[in-house]
């Protein structure tokens, strides 16, 4: 056998080798993305801790109403959207297209609701004078910089997730995409929920005045 033929055989052999994780390549790719993204959010939250711990004074602008109450409602909405996403994945694996669309539709609605509540909160803070470089309470500007950066990156993930779920849902309804695609998108959505489980206590609950 020639060298080139052996090389081709070797390549085919490795391509046919089953995944040691027994999951599809797209699901593994999503897991690798999630790990990298978790490191990004972890780095940002550590930076927040570093700057807060290293600051002589720190502004704690939040009160129960509207900030914490709004944050709690947002948390419940995001957690519930994870539940509806699980319903969508289960229905997709069972081949129930109509039920899948309903569950995914509910997830999109909850994601949009979360984004609207977040943007409403941001708008109120902007009107109070908060920005990336301004603190209306007269202290360090670091709180605004960190709050808007971290929640902004998370909000970007939520909006991306809403778009992704919508696209996947339409593709699944038309038969172009499989239940595996729905499940992989679900992994991403649960990760967005998981990140919020750190953002809410660290950025909201620890900044009560």
């Amino acid at each position, binding site marked *: 056998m020639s060298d080139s033929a052996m090389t081709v055989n070797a390549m085919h052999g490795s391509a046919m080798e*089953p995944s040691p994780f027994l999951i599809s390549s797209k699901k593994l790719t999503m897991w690798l993305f999630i790990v990298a993204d978790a490191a990004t959010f972890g780095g940002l939250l550590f930076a927040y801790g570093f700057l807060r*711990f290293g600051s002589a004074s720190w502004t704690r602008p939040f009160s129960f109403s509207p900030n914490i109450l709004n944050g709690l409602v947002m*948390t419940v909405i995001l957690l519930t959207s994870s539940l509806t996403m699980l319903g969508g994945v289960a229905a997709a694996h069972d081949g129930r297209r109509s039920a899948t669309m309903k569950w995914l539709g509910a997830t999109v609605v909850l994601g949009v609701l979360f984004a609207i509540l977040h943007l409403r909160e941001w708008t109120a803070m902007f009107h109070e004078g908060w920005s990336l470089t301004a603190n209306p309470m007269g202290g360090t500007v670091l709180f605004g910089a960190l709050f808007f950066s971290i929640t902004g990156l998370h909000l970007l993930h939520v909006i991306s997730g809403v778009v992704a779920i919508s696209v996947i849902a339409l593709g699944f309804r038309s038969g172009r995409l499989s239940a595996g695609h729905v*499940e992989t998108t679900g992994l991403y959505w649960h990760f967005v929920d*998981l990140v919020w489980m750190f953002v809410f*206590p660290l950025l909201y609950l620890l900044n009560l005045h």
Partner: protein
Amino acid sequence: MTTMEPSAGPNMRVYISVWLGMLLIVAIEAALAYAHVSGGVLVTALLVLAFLEAAIALRYFMHLKYEVPMLFWTLIPGLLLAFFMMNQFWADSSRLNALRFPVP
């Protein structure tokens, strides 16, 4: 022969129980924020509860419990090590604070 079929996960009843459990943890976090505890205790408690929620989400919502163990051992310990290594920065953060001139 190995297959790449999705592993059998829990049913919706289990998911709803997990969802309720996570809501309970959020409620405990909010209650703790209003309890009269020191800053250090509060940060520690909130972080422990957040990691507990993350572990539950990973195991049940993201199905890590139902995948082969190698997936967990490939992904999670390395990430936790990265987080652990970031703790090296706290000493410098503390030093920055100590270097400031005292507030008159």
